[in-house]
């Protein structure tokens, strides 16, 4: 079964890789690029929520760190590849340091404390971005130039797609490693994992650092796609996007995060289009909110999770049937 899934992934990846060459639609290309960027972000969030069982409301923090780092570097220095790489390095270091410090300080606390504190800290970053005008130009944000390599929409699409595939591969490797297994054990039963001799804090901090770094990378790509950055990258909305994507796609599955990102981005696009038909669609967040509440209530495993469960049930039934046959 796993092999069949792998073949499916490869086919999808190849299809997406050749898509810009067979179907030329600028809108679709840009939309899909956004999907890839947010898929990276949602996958990074899923490491926390889905694999470790930590609810963070401050994930926009790392997204924003990436977005601003690349913006500041491209604005202050020349938009060349070496500076771009330097910005990537700085983003990785910054988000790792912030997530490490924050994790050490707050991950000892229970889930609801942690959720509140991350909310508070990301609020602090938002305020910082608004007030530190010499660097961030305040609320208005600033535009910047990007290296020539990323200028072409098709090239940028491919870069984002490849980055997403690489992140997917890395995170999949990570979650199936012994370390990833410990994380899942923490999600399932924290006390038991602790009594087995694992230091919970240590593993949670590792998860938060990895997740933070990946979110930073998503932030880089995001502000590169806009060639503009402002304080909105630090807002709660960004974290909520990641939350929605993971929940709707399926908690605890990386593919779910990608599917969720696709669904949300496309739904967002269509609903904004519908705003021309009726003004209520301008307030599309309401529909999202309601769908999200219903999803948490009735559909807690998301699309991928529910599919998996159905499959599991079916194979169980088949097993039962087979057993019955043997018995008769």
């Amino acid at each position, binding site marked *: 079964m796993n092999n069949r899934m792998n073949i499916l992934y490869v086919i999808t990846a190849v299809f997406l890789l050749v898509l810009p060459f067979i179907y030329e639609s600028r809108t679709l290309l840009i939309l899909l690029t956004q999907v890839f960027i947010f898929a990276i972000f949602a996958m990074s969030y899923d490491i926390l929520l889905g694999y470790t069982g930590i609810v963070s409301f401050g994930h926009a923090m790392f997204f924003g760190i990436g977005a601003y780092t690349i913006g500041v570097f491209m604005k202050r220095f020349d938009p060349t590849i070496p500076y771009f790489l330097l910005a990537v390095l700085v983003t990785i270091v910054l988000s790792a340091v912030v997530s490490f410090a924050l994790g050490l300080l707050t991950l000892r606390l229970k889930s609801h404390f942690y959720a*509140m504190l991350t909310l508070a800290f990301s609020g602090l970053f938002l305020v910082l971005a608004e007030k530190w005008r010499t660097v961030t130009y305040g609320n208005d944000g600033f535009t910047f130039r990007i290296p020539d390599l990323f200028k072409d929409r098709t090239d940028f699409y491919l870069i984002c797609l490849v980055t997403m595939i690489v992140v997917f591969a890395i995170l999949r490797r990570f979650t199936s490693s012994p370390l990833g297994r410990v994380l899942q054990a923490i999600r399932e039963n924290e006390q038991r994992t602790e009594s087995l001799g694992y230091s919970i804090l240590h593993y949670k901090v590792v998860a938060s650092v990895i997740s933070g770094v990946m979110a930073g990378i998503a932030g880089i790509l995001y502000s590169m796609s806009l060639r503009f950055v402002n304080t909105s990258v630090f807002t709660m909305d960004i974290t909520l996007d990641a939350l929605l994507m993971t929940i709707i796609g399926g908690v605890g599955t990386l593919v779910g995060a990608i599917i969720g990102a696709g669904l949300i981005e496309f739904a967002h696009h269509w609903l904004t289009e519908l705003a021309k038909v009726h003004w209520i669609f301008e307030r599309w967040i309401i529909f999202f909110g309601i769908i999200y509440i219903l999803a948490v209530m009735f559909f807690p495993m998301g699309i991928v999770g529910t599919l998996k469960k159905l499959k599991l049930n079916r194979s169980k039934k088949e097993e039962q049937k087979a057993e019955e046959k043997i018995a008769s």
Partner: protein
Amino acid sequence: MDVLINLSLNGLATGMLIFLLAAGLTLIFGLMDVLNFAHGGLFAWGAYSGTWIYATTGSFLIAIAGAILTGLILGLLTERWIIKPVYGNHVQQILITLGLMLVLSELLKVVWGPNQISASPPSYLAGSWELGNVIIIKYRVFIIAVGILVFGIVQYILKNTKIGLIVRAGVMDKEMVQALGINIQKVFMLVFMIGAGMAALGGAMLGPYSGVIYAEMGLEFAILAFIVVVIGGMGSFPGSILAAILVGVSGSFMAYYVPSLSLAVNMLLMAVVLIFRPQGLFGLKG
């Protein structure tokens, strides 16, 4: 000296507003073990409905009463439809109340439009007293008085009435209270409604204090309230008023003496408390 008095009064007034919000959070958490992330949404609804009723009826008292009623009704609906299905599951509670927060603040924009709305106090609360060089703004005194009053009432109910006894017992041991033949579901509902009503009252009083109200203020104040709850200790009612005053006053002093640090002061306060007393100043649970 004059500056000190002004700053203290200012800080106290802000502290009392935060207290009204944090007290509801801490009551709900203490008894029901539910962390209500939609609390800021109830606060914002109180602000909007209060301002709207004041603008239509012209009576500030009716506006306050109307805002509280809005809070009570929203609290009832929230407890019934949103919280009830997810009792006992922390992660789901956090996620679902956050979704509600989203819906509540967007609904505000649907009903009253996306722009800021200005609000002003009634004529008898506008203006200020001058005592020598000290200028005392009447509305701030009013906020402080209401805050102390609410604290007194809730504290009295908790300590001296039967329902307070049930609530306190419920905080200690839910199952035991249930076993004694008390319908804990009803108590839950009542506590949630009271918490929501207090949040709405805080919102209604904020409008004339800050001059403008907007849909995003729910989340901003909710963050402050969370910080207060963490500093004071989850579930501790006296802790939340002490921490609210601490946050309010230190914020007001910092804004005057060290403006660049003023925005971070709450975080610093919270970080210090967390490092030395992770359960909060008055908290029992870790």
